[in-house]
């Protein structure tokens, strides 16, 4: 059993309340940071820990913090990105729902390190009940002197707010999040300038994922070096993985980075194997926007090495035979699942969530969705398969924000690894409908 740093106390009765959380050793990191460390000292610890962004891209957090511009007389902001909307990812929800004080503790320590006096938690609108949980926790923190003016007599002030969004996936992109927080339409900004220089209200801003900020708490408590001992190579620490799909035990698991993927799927500690004793077909290891892996590339990389749950190992082989750790939305497919239908479902999501600002993403996501829908309904053509790859290639890398890439990667990867299944959909539409929907019906005219 691996060490648990974040959700160790998640099952303790009443951990949502301040008293129980404090009894379990809560707010120690704030005490330690504010009383014994300088802001730069906290930053050094985070750098030493090798913590990488848990929201998807895996950018080193310490480096991100050190890029923050610090001009005189301009406020700085820390924003917590709780707009977790990726299909397959639900780890932040678990964390915020169970232990809201952990996030708040992380926010205080991180804000202190960055010198931010106002911080925001931008939470997606669909998590409406978590807004109340967080606000109650913030009230308790204010009442006990962890927030507000002159925290612990250190002279450091911090105000923390929860800002609910209106339910847009695109607002999880950091500049769109900032736009939305400013009260505008959530369109991503053109970079540069990066948020570290010009972010919220044209001030230097850092945007971090919920889990990243929560991970600062154990780093300060135990020290960065101790945290860096967990994991392999540049993937240090623990990671929350939200496992779903055809497995025996779906749920949120905290793993030490470096657990073999095979162990993660089949061990009773984690997913507990494939449901109903079926065979493994494919796996999406990091939320819907990362490339899908076929069964022969899940346990072993293309070189024959064992595939581990780390940033490096999962992306081994690039996009030809690898994927990404992403945000940790681990989706497992058994042999009965239809890859075309699944890809269409993802494409439909991206079509719906594209902001419509730049043309390749706006038009391309809709086009891909329509082509996949046609194929799924038995009207596909063989030329459609190559056309899908071509559309994906024309979107990828040509858009303002990464949503275009996120829409293109799963489609391109599905065609790359499961071309036979796409061809089967074209050649035998009735047979694939029988499998997918359990009934024989005539192909629908599109």
């Amino acid at each position: 059993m691996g060490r648990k740093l974040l959700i160790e106390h998640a099952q303790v009765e009443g951990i949502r309340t301040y008293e129980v959380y404090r009894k379990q050793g809560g707010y120690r990191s704030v005490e330690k940071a504010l009383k014994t460390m300088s802001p730069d000292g906290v930053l050094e610890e985070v750098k030493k820990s090798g913590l990488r962004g848990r929201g998807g891209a895996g950018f080193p957090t310490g480096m991100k913090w050190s890029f923050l511009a610090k001009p005189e007389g301009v406020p700085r902001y820390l924003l917590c990105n709780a707009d977790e909307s990726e299909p397959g990812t639900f780890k932040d929800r678990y964390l915020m729902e169970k232990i809201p004080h952990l996030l708040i503790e992380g926010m205080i320590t991180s804000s202190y390190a960055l010198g931010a006096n106002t911080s925001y938690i931008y939470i997606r609108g669909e998590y409406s009940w978590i807004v109340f949980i967080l606000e109650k926790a913030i009230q308790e923190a204010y009442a006990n002197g962890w927030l507000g003016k002159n925290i612990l007599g250190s002279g450091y002030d911090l105000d923390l707010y929860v800002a609910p969004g209106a339910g847009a996936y695109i607002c999880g992109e950091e500049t769109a999040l900032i736009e939305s927080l400013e009260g505008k339409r959530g369109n991503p900004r053109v970079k540069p300038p990066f948020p570290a220089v010009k972010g919220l209200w044209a001030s230097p801003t850092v945007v971090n994922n919920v889990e990243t900020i929560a991970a600062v708490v154990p780093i300060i408590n135990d020290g960065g070096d101790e945290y860096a001992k967990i994991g392999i190579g540049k993937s240090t620490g623990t990671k929350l993985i939200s496992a779903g799909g055809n497995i025996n035990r779906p749920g949120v698991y905290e793993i030490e980075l470096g657990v073999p993927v095979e162990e993660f799927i089949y061990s009773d500690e984690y997913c507990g194997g494939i449901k109903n004793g079926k065979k493994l077909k494919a796996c999406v290891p990091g939320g819907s926007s990362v490339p899908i892996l076929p069964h022969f590339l899940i346990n072993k990389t293309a070189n024959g090495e064992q595939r581990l749950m780390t940033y490096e190992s999962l992306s081994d082989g690039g996009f030809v035979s690898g994927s990404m750790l992403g945000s940790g939305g681990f989706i497992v497919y058994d042999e009965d699942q239809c890859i075309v239908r699944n890809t269409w479902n993802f494409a439909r999501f991206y079509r719906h969530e594209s902001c419509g600002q730049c043309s390749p993403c706006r038009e391309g996501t809709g086009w891909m969705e329509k082509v996949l829908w046609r194929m799924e309904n038995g009207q596909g053509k063989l030329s459609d398969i190559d056309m899908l790859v071509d559309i994906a290639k024309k979107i990828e890398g040509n858009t303002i924000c990464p949503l275009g890439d996120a829409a293109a990667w799963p489609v391109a990867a599905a065609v790359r690894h499961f071309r036979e299944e796409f061809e089967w959909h074209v050649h035998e539409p009735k047979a694939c409908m029988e499998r997918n929907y359990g009934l024989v019906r005539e192909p629908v005219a599109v």
Partner: protein
Amino acid sequence: MPKVKIDGFEMEVPDGTTILQAARMIGGDIVPPAMCYYSTLQGSGSKCRTCLVKVTKGSEKDPRPMPKLVTSCQTMVMDGMEVANITSEEVQKARAGVVEFLLLNHPLDCPICDQAGECHLQDLAFEHGAAGTRYEFERRTFEKIDIGPYIKLHMTRCILCYRCVYVANQLTDNRVHGILNRGDHSEISTMIEKAIDNDFSGNVIDVCPVGALTDRTFRFKSRVWFLDPMDAHRECPTCSGKAVVWMYGNEVFRVTARKDKYGEVHDFICNTCRFEKKAPGDWVVEGPRSIDRHSVIAQGHYGQKALTVR
């Protein structure tokens, strides 16, 4: 002053110049097309992705090439930068892809569109577009809306460049229209079909690169290439009064602001000049306007009726 080389042409440009502006200083074929960038509107650009270029050398200090194609309208020039536009196959392919995306939901109703002949999308499709489409689905359509007495919004033709939104934000008193919805179903609109009512609203017609916003006082009156554009001015208390009148014989068919080579207006004109002053005596005609961007208009011969419909 930084030196930049675009497709082998070197130019010294002031600090803070974008690649697109530098290319325009050099001029000629190497200027990337721009559908959404508008130099006089703050914040415009980077949306249409037609101006993508390849930076083959970042700068003198850091000679690495940039990993992705960049939008030339937003990327600042660095000293020693080398850019490939028409010499890069990758750029041409990406641009052809963008044109395909832009035309995907465009109705291609050029034969009945008032913008035909001075439409940027037409020029772009002519230069980079494919002969046919691979899109086999129903295109998105919208109802035509009259926004105010002078402007017709034909959303079906829109390519969502956001230029008119910036005009409404920056040129007029209060914001009157914007984008509704998201993704490929987003649309330019006024909330609850409210009329656009202010002195400078007519400029949204000039900034629109396609025929989505057209002049209701000119709709279906004539094709632009049958008209003679003339530089003209008048004493106007509201605006500069400098405009182009489009004449057929002695009759003024429409009035627009003066657009430069790249279709950009620097002196915006007011609605009175644009829509209400159409008697020949209203304007002091300075002389013929040379139009070099749109070849079909430039072909018109002043003083003679060379083009007749057969």
